[in-house]
């Protein structure tokens, strides 16, 4: 069994990668993908802490991760719908080009 900090480091790495992507990529979909990655990193943390925590039989981490997955699904759906709506409006999916609120 790898020690806890291995998981924590992995999670931090994933979070950083997601952050880097969300900050640097111009494509709206990729920004969303970066955010998803960050959420996943958080999930990994939950599960790792649950497994290495004091009372794993309480299942708190697992349940939290499940709620998080559910919310991530909702977020992805709304996010992508937004991207499609924006694309329809501006005919672009590059976040830099969408710089005004009025169409």
């Amino acid at each position, binding site marked *: *069994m*790898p*020690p*806890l*900090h*291995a*998981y*924590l*480091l*992995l999670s*931090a*790495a*994933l*979070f*950083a*990668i*997601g*952050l*880097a*992507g*969300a*900050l*640097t*990529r111009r*494509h709206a*979909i*990729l920004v*969303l*993908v970066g955010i*998803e*990655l960050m959420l*996943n990193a958080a*999930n*990994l943390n939950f*599960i*790792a802490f649950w*497994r*290495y925590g004091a009372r*794993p039989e309480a*299942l708190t*981490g*697992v*349940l939290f991760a*499940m*709620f998080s*997955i559910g919310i*991530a*699904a*909702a*977020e*992805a*759906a*709304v996010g*992508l*719908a*937004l*991207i*499609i*709506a924006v694309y329809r409006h501006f005919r672009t*999916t590059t976040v830099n080009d969408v710089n005004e609120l009025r169409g």
Partner: protein
Amino acid sequence: METAFYVLAAVTVAGAVAAMALPRLVHCTLCLAVAFVGLAGHFLLLGAEFVSFAQVLVYVGAVAILVVFAMLLTRSADAPPAWVVSRPGLLGVGVAVLVFGCLAATVAGSGLAGREAPPAPEVTVKALGERLMAEYVVPLEVVGLLLTAALIGAVILALEDRAKGGT
């Protein structure tokens, strides 16, 4: 176990890096799916069977597919490859590295770091279900509500133009 962890970790990180760095959007999505599968493997290793399968079902089966669909609908799949290398891009990477450094330092500095796992608990679906239905019934309902709201919201967003009178 250790080997499995390192292999999976390598797959996950490689998938994530590729998902964020590859020039073509479709490749990014596929690599993202790989990263998700790797994470599911980690969950399995950690004994959270149910979450692992849910992860695959939701992330690979739904989110990745949604991304693919959004790509097809916005014609981004055939968009010209775009590299990350630019000045604001480097800035973003710098910020990310900084964040990672902070997190890593915190992890290394905390007392938790070397902790070993207690004996694996038995996570049955039944136990999960009972928790969800008893202790966590309010959050469950809230998530359900949220999902419904998101579904309706997404549909309305996607239908917007026709409502506006698309001839």
